[in-house]
């Protein structure tokens, strides 16, 4: 686990960044860096500290200790200069519901100092990007979730910020809209925009260049999705398919060679040391106890396996919308 970006110019750097609210530690000494054009995903359960972290990077919360730099600027010392070079989509709704599409865009244009011909171009671009052509005068309140999210992104990038913070941008949006949203993020990344995005969707995390796994304020793993999967469990994960998960789950916890058992729908994932030797042992173990199964076979781990393994005590809350 390396805190440094693999290559390129670091645009976001934190060193032992921490935030405490009274006795509660929301973010606990987190260090990482994100390079130019990279899409960095923060994956973790609700309340893990993702939003607190992003708010510190936007200068909305003062770090209790540690340091954070955005575009080479210390966020605690230069919050205003940081704000000029970032775009931010908050977890809460970021747009004015009672304003129309065009009124929202013009408002943010005015706030960010985008004017004249450039404003017209950017507004047109944002409307196009959000798929709202011909609906510029619609009140935002009347738009569906996917449109609102894309428009919020349009507002956040109206001033073409080199760094973009997105806090759970696709929560509550249907899968098609989520996919469209990610296409936009890829396009921005290709133009060199650095993106830091939080999510609790596993599939979404797979889209990121690198993932930081965060739990209870701590950074528990950092790497590309394939790195994480390799490092955590690859080659040592078994799938057990069965009719009734409950009794097997309980029994397998004390089975020989099994280090961890986790239910995945109507099957179980077992973490073992040596799959080749362990499969027959497990089959014998289950047969001896009269427990039925359909099959036991090695599988490739998913990010959820990594997460379950590293976070330990369970999976993501609200993993499905």
């Amino acid at each position, binding site marked *: 686990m390396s805190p440094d970006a693999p290559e390129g110019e670091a645009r976001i750097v934190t060193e032992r960044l921490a935030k405490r609210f009274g006795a509660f530690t929301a973010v606990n000494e987190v260090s990482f860096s994100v390079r130019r054009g990279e899409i960095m995903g923060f994956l973790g359960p609700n309340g893990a500290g993702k939003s607190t972290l992003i708010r510190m990077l936007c*200068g*909305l919360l003062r770090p209790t200790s540690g340091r954070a730099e955005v575009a080479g600027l210390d966020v605690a010392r230069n919050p205003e200069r940081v704000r000029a070079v970032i775009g931010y989509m908050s977890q809460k709704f970021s747009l*004015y519901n009672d304003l129309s599409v065009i*009124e929202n865009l013009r408002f943010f244009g005015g706030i960010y100092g985008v004017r004249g011909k450039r404003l017209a171009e950017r507004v047109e671009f944002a409307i196009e990007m959000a798929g709202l052509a011909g609906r510029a005068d619609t009140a935002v309140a009347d738009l569906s979730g996917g449109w609102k999210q894309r428009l919020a992104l349009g507002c956040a990038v109206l001033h073409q910020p080199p760094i973009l913070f997105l806090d759970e941008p696709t929560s509550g949006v249907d899968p098609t809209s989520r996919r469209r949203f990610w296409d936009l993020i890829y396009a921005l990344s290709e133009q060199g925009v650095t993106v830091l995005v939080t999510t609790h969707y596993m599939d979404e995390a797979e889209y990121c260049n690198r993932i930081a796994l965060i739990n209870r304020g701590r950074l528990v793993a950092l790497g590309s999705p394939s790195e994480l999967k390799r490092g955590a469990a690859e080659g040592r994960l078994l799938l057990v398919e069965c009719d009734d998960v409950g009794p097997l789950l309980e029994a397998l916890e004390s089975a020989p060679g099994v280090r961890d058992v986790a239910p995945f729908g109507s099957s179980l994932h077992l973490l073992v040391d040596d799959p080749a030797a362990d499969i027959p042992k497990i089959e014998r173990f289950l047969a001896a106890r009269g427990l039925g199964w359909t099959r036991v076979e090695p599988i490739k781990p998913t990010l959820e396996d990594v997460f379950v393994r590293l976070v330990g005590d369970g999976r993501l809350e609200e993993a499905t919308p």
Partner: protein
Amino acid sequence: MKARRVKAIAKKELIQVWRDPRSLMIALLMPLMQMALLGYGVNLDIKHIPVCAFDREASQQSQALLKRFQASNYFRVVEAVGSYQVLKDALDYGRCKLGVVIPPDFSERLVDLEAAPVQVVLDATDDNTASIGLGYAQEVVSGYSGDIQLVSWQRQGTLAQNPPAVVQSRVWFNEDLNSRNFVIPGVVAMVLALVGAQLTSLTISREWERGTMEVLISTPVTRMEVMTGKILPYFAIGLVDATLCLTIAVYWFEVPFRGALATLFLTTSLFLIVVLGVGYLISVAIHSQVGASQIALVVTLMPTMLLSGFAFPIDQMPWPIQAVTYLVHSRYYVTILKAVFLKGSGLVALATPISLLALYAAAIAFLAARAFRKTLD
């Protein structure tokens, strides 16, 4: 401070007010309703006090005196009673506020030019009405006795020898002693204080409540720009409201306006800065719209009602309360408005309250500019 950002915020704010029925009602309907309610409701004039007459003589003279009560605007003789008991009941049941008792030897004593006592019994549960009623009753009786004296002097031909000293009173500024003239300028101050604070109390809390504040403070906008952009549109609305209220005062309630429009505009602008600033400060502190609006109501309504001199004269208050009135923003504006309306006072005569109001506005603007913080901590 960048004009472009201020303009963006002000424009957004105006659109939001225009589309929010609640804000629109506060901005346009509330001043009208308040002017009507308070303008008609707060009436300090005491007229047509119900009177019971206990005429124990029933002579031409006693009836003449009672006719004077009846003829006066201040009284209305509602009942003639035949005993003290009935008179007491009439007062108890509230059928009258005042009883006039004329003794059985009233006309005899008058003929003898003796002092003829007339008893006045008052219901003093409302001491203000009672003492004013007593004053008017004394006036009626002394007018009557003066005329009697005049007649007897004429008969005796001694008129020229003994002219009594007479007070000739001239009432200035509110010649008709019409309390409406005195109350309405205060009502205007009250309406502006109320509406102004209500309007801005929603402006910051609305953004917190709807979640838009988080994005707004993540932009490079400064707190001065936020304050200016948020207050400017309400200042314009406030001026519209002020014009509306003052027009109603002059053309509907017919309060004489003797001052200069420029003085009125200047002082109204200062007062608007104060009340809008107070609402803004509340809005910054309270992150819920309902909460902010409630606090704005309490903070402006009670002090303005009781301590601004709008209805209760400040110099009649005990000194600790008088000291507190200096903190009440509407005190200065009420003083100024009354003077500009009724006396036609100008900037020089009003230098003290205007400078104090300006000082107040500067202090509130200073606090408002510093109050808003662009953090979630």
